[in-house]
């Protein structure tokens, strides 16, 4: 079943390659159809997912390169189930909105997006380090092209930067993976985890993985590729980047760093917590000074991802579960904000906030929907962001991974003030006040296609905000298992 899910988008991509270039709507519907099928397949997995079971489910295991202990092994557990769902949920939305954002070389574009879906699904479902690495690298390529070909003015610079950064981290990780594979005699993740961190050099190994993932997250100070990549990418690319690709980093920290190197995790947790908190505050403060709406959202991403790292390295159940939920929340809310900015960009071909003003008056529906995404991102209770943030903060507050956790948490909580400052400023500059440019007078409110793109996201925002139980329930067993298996005291 998991193989089916992973390779369904690949089949779609191959099919698109066979279609004539001119039949654009057929291409578009094929891509959308396959991504929807993938979503349906993942829902089937979710329905059959046993929430009481801590271990991997739907496991598929085949030999691949047996002489090196490399296998083709897939599985899903409570840690990856929502990453799987988030991925299959976001891709159809990104494809759906592509019609407005992308206008040339559609065949290549849609094929690449589907390839990217395949690769990201592979990342979240692989249980073999080598297989994981292959998917990890593969996910890089389509995004590189999407920024480089369909991006904005500085696309070449942005795509190179994206590539160089991620590649630099990947090389380190590859070294570490190969080291593990050789010393452990296998690339099988479960077998390696079972060794319980008894490695000759677990600190350097931890760092090799951590840097690769920190770049992807991105964790301060490894973030500088993100604003450029986000700003230059076409809207659907930004959505996927924020919602799915960044999660690969956070997921990696949990799946590999915590599980493989429990001692080193404890050792480096204070550093990671502090970097996460710096990221929360730094991203927020820098976001405030942005004049380009998309860059502002990009920096808000850095701030929000800081909470996730804070939660992960609190090394307790609340922190980790909060982080996992916040990974979903961030994907939905920030993905939504990128869509919101994209709608305006398609109308006005600028993202300079100074040229807007009073847009709520011209586009009442758009203004209302945008406000909901802003509020979700601000962490307003009854919407999704608050639940994740609160659980993370509670976890961090009681963490035994760092001295004086209460004081550190107080710093992190100041992010609540800053997020209100920069996001409401963002909203005010674009939507409130008087119009600062005559071109705004011609703005037309959202059409049904655009509304249809954001309504599912809003549904999730309210659902998680009001009833997070099923999301937490599905993670419980696996997270508890992870924490106890690596000997981290549960609280």
């Amino acid at each position: 079943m998991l193989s089916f899910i992973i390779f369904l988008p690949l089949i779609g991509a191959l099919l698109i390659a066979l279609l004539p270039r001119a039949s654009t709507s057929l291409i578009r519907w094929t891509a959308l159809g396959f991504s929807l099928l993938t979503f349906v397949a993942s829902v089937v997995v979710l329905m059959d997912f046993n929430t009481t079971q801590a271990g991997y489910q739907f496991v598929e295991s085949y030999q691949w390169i047996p002489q090196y202990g490399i296998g083709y092994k897939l599985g899903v557990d409570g840690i990856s189930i929502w990453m799987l769902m988030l991925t299959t949920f976001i891709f159809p939305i990104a494809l759906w909105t592509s019609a407005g954002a992308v206008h040339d070389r559609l065949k290549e574009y849609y094929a690449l997006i589907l390839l990217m879906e395949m690769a990201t699904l592979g990342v979240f479902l692989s249980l073999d380090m080598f297989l994981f690495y292959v998917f990890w690298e593969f996910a890089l390529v389509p995004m590189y092209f999407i920024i480089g070909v369909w991006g904005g003015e500085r696309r070449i610079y942005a795509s190179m930067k994206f590539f160089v950064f991620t590649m630099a981290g990947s090389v380190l990780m590859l070294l570490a993976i190969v080291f593990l594979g050789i010393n452990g005699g296998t690339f099988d993740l479960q077998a390696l985890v079972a060794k319980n961190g008894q490695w000759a050099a677990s600190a350097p190994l931890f760092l090799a993985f951590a840097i690769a993932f920190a770049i992807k997250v991105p964790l301060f100070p490894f973030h500088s590729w993100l604003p450029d990549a986000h700003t230059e990418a076409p809207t659907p690319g930004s959505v996927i980047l924020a919602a799915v690709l960044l999660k690969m980093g956070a997921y990696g920290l949990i799946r590999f760093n915590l599980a493989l190197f429990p001692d080193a995790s404890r050792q480096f947790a204070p550093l990671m917590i502090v970097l996460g908190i710096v990221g929360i505050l730094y991203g927020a403060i820098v976001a405030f000074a942005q004049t380009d709406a998309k860059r502002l959202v990009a920096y808000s991403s850095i701030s929000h991802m800081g909470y996730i790292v804070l939660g992960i390295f609190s090394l307790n159940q609340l922190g980790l579960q909060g982080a996992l939920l916040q990974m979903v929340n961030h994907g939905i809310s920030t993905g939504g904000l990128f869509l919101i900015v994209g709608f305006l960009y398609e109308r006005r071909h600028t993202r300079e906030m100074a040229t807007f003003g009073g847009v709520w008056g011209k586009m009442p529906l758009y203004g209302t929907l945008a406000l909901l995404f802003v509020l979700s991102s601000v962490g307003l209770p009854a919407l999704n962001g608050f639940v994740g943030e609160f659980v993370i903060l509670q976890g961090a507050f009681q963490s035994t991974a760092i001295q004086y956790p209460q004081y550190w948490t107080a710093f992190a909580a100041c992010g609540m003030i800053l997020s209100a400052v920069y996001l409401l400023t963002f909203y005010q500059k674009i939507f409130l006040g008087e119009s600062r440019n005559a071109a705004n007078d011609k703005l037309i409110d959202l059409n049904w296609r655009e509304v249809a793109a954001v309504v599912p996201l809003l549904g999730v925002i309210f659902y998680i905000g009001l009833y997070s139980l099923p999301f937490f329930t599905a993670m419980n067993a696996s997270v508890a298992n992870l924490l106890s298996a690596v000997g981290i005291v549960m609280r």
Partner: protein
Amino acid sequence: MQLLFISPILFPLSGLLINAAFGKRMGERLIGAVASLMVLASFAVSAYLFIQMGALPEAQRATAVDLGIPWIQVGNLHVPFGFLIDQLSVTMMLIVTGVGGLIHIYSIGYMHGDPRFQRFFVYMNLFIASMLVLVMADSFLLMFVGWELVGLCSYLLIGFWFSNIKNAEAGRKAFVVNRIGDVGFILGILLIFATFGTLTFTDVFGKVMAMSALNSPVIVAITLLLFIGAVGKSAQIPLFVWLPDAMAGPTPVSALIHAATMVTAGIYMMTRAHVLYTAAPATQDIVALIGGLTAFVAGSIALTQYDIKKVLAYSTVSQLGFMVAAAGLGAYATSIFHLATHAFFKALLFLAAGSVIHGMEHLSKSAGAHGGAADGHAVDPQDMRNMGGLRAKMPITFIVYVIGGLALAGVPPFAGFFSKDEIVAAAMQHNPLVFGLLGIAAVFTAFYIGRQLVMVFFGKPRTGNAEHAAESAPLMTIPLIVLAVFAAIAGVLNLPGVGTLGTWLAPAVGGYEVEAFQIGVAGLFTLLSVAALLGAWYVYRNAFTKSSDVDPLAGLGPLYIFLKRAWLIDALYQSVIVKLFYAASSFLARVFDVGGIDGLVNGTAVLVRNTSGVLRRIQNGLVRSYGMMMLLGVVVVVAYFLWSAVAR
């Protein structure tokens, strides 16, 4: 039965959904009717619950309502959708929905003709629903939901006429300043859970009561953190700066924020958490002092304002100081008593001020939209210097205004007299400093409201707008009359020596002792109030004959400027904290992030590019060859490592 208990929340919630979904086709009257009736229905249910509760023996009056739906459930953190209906919450429900309902009815008239009439009532209903969540919640975290949602509603309603950027700015300021307090609140919640392992009121309070020692550090910390939240929401020093700006919203919104909802939340929260506060006398002293200071400072500022609503806004801050001081003195029931009487007379004063503004706008506008009030007008309809002589033009508004004013000033037998007297009496017993501050604040109160009454209603009209002012429509005056009746007689709720309200609340607020009437204190303060009122009349009776006349208080020189500019507190924030933040943000974004972190990375890249001619040739700009190189690179690297691994 559970549905009945939570129906007060569900009514306004469904009202807002109906209006949001179908409002476009419904027309003003129907929208207003749906919104108002929903709030009145909540009031009816609250009254029913109140009566039912009264029929029960005292020990059985509190009802825990658990919907059986978990909101957050992870690890050992369990927060259900649970509500606590007891004497305290039902009293708050009655105030919120009763006063709120009247404000809704009034708004139908006041907002008539506004292009976003529908949206206004959606927000208003959301406001009531949020406030009800706040007062009905059975845990700190669910209370925080309502707490933040009223913050959202204030943001939306203060900035309702958002095309004027000043209004939008005021809304944002309210939200951000509230958020500063909210961080304190949330840290308090984190500490409560870390300490007690639960967030439910009854469980937390049970565990606190089991602790015998007073002033244990953790309880002091919790109460101080929660108090930071109350300081934000109930506009105390140093976070009161958002409330005076909040009058940028339509006047009914000011009434709602200042009287029935929002700012009362902090008082309610401390009263609800009285078990914690009583266990932390050290915090109590700080609370009482902050309350006293706020009453004094805000009262002194109100003396010098010209804007009719701004006087009332600072008055609210000052009166909230009285309530906070009462809570700090341990007189929780008294605090709620003043909250109730204040809700009546302050809602009355704001709505009556709205009626005045409405009257003042007659000349320049045919009845209707107020949106552009601040711009394009030659005559500011809110500036009291432009008024005068409205007594004859708007007789009903005048009479109710006087009743509200006397209630505020604490003149017997009006409502404010009784509640303020109780607070002052408590202060006299326990804390001389706070007693002094409150005493001076009480004199200020009578003086500024006297000044306002004279400037608005007496003398001769000073502008054409005042000359042509006319009484408002019944839809607006009837709620005024109802509120005026309550402002006049609400003292009977808790007469000295009887203490009906206090006795009723006692089990929920840790007890209440009925105090005998202290003729000395009451007599002294009555004399002071009347003297201050007369003083204001004496000073202002001939002070303004035309709009441009100078305020007699201006003779105070620098002190007058200092008061008029609100002790320069907001100016200090603007010129220090806000400026610093801008500078830091700008530096980090434009210098540090671009030049520092990014520059380091790009510098390395440039270095590599310049020193390697081979690479430059390959960088031919074709994306395809980059891609090929990349894949090739991956393959080579992987192959190399695998090979070296095997070779070893």
